[in-house]
């Protein structure tokens, strides 16, 4: 029973779907951030698996930079979130309709 690249790609797809479901049904912005972390992680798994099965380092490098981007996204996103919460006392998506026409 050999684990092949397809196994990892299927796993990555399943995790990506879970993240997408989270993005679509969450109303709390913090929970939305958690779902985006799941999306980024599922892509990382796929990249590292491809890197392993093709004997190429490029996939691991990309995963490394994705982690760096995820870290800075969290820093900026949480800063904005704290700012929004201080002002409006809620982080529900449905209240962010100030740009409604």
């Amino acid at each position: 029973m050999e684990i092949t690249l397809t196994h990892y790609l299927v796993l990555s797809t399943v995790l990506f779907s879970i993240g997408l479901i989270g993005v679509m049904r969450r109303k709390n912005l913090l929970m939305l951030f958690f779902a985006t972390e799941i999306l980024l992680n599922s892509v990382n798994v796929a990249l590292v698996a491809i890197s392993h099965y093709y004997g190429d380092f490029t996939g691991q490098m990309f995963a490394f930079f994705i982690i760096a981007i995820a870290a800075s996204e969290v820093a900026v996103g949480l800063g904005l979130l704290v700012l929004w919460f201080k002002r409006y006392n809620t982080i529900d998506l449905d209240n962010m309709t100030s740009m409604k026409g």
Partner: protein
Amino acid sequence: MFEAAAFYLFAFLTIAMFWITVTTKHSLYALTALAAGMIFISAFFFILEADFMGVVQIIVYSGAVMALYAFGMMFFDTTRELHEKRVNSSLVFGLSGMAALIIVVMVSAPIIGGNIEAHYPILEGVGNSQQIGMVLFTKYLVPFEVAAVMLLVAMIAGIIMAGRKMDESYSELSEEEINTKNAEGIA
């Protein structure tokens, strides 16, 4: 055999943890399940002989990102139950499935093509971290520096945005003073 057992075990655990993260009604459960899922993800990296990525995953995600989320959650009311958007759920699942299918096609397209050549081949007998360092500091030096600048910008942005008015302690103010301050802030 060991590899297969480890893969299925960690696949099950990761999917279960992330499923809890997106479905639970308590944000603290979501945070804990996400942290556990991140650690289980690093197990895949160790199975795939990407030791450096596994360690970075544990340090950055389970260490830094989760700590940041935990500190961020102290600002918000986490005891309240979360309310979900009740949209057409079959639409949601259909759209997720379609998007995931597109991802599979995108990722598997080069496999069907089959004529991939390794740009930076993984060498036998050389440690993973050593090779990562060699590739990172020669071929990917400019992206590495740009990522460093990006992290610096993110850090300054986070400090400026979240740290505004940190010199006023709300716990020492009376209820009326807080209300007037909030009213000023909104206006």
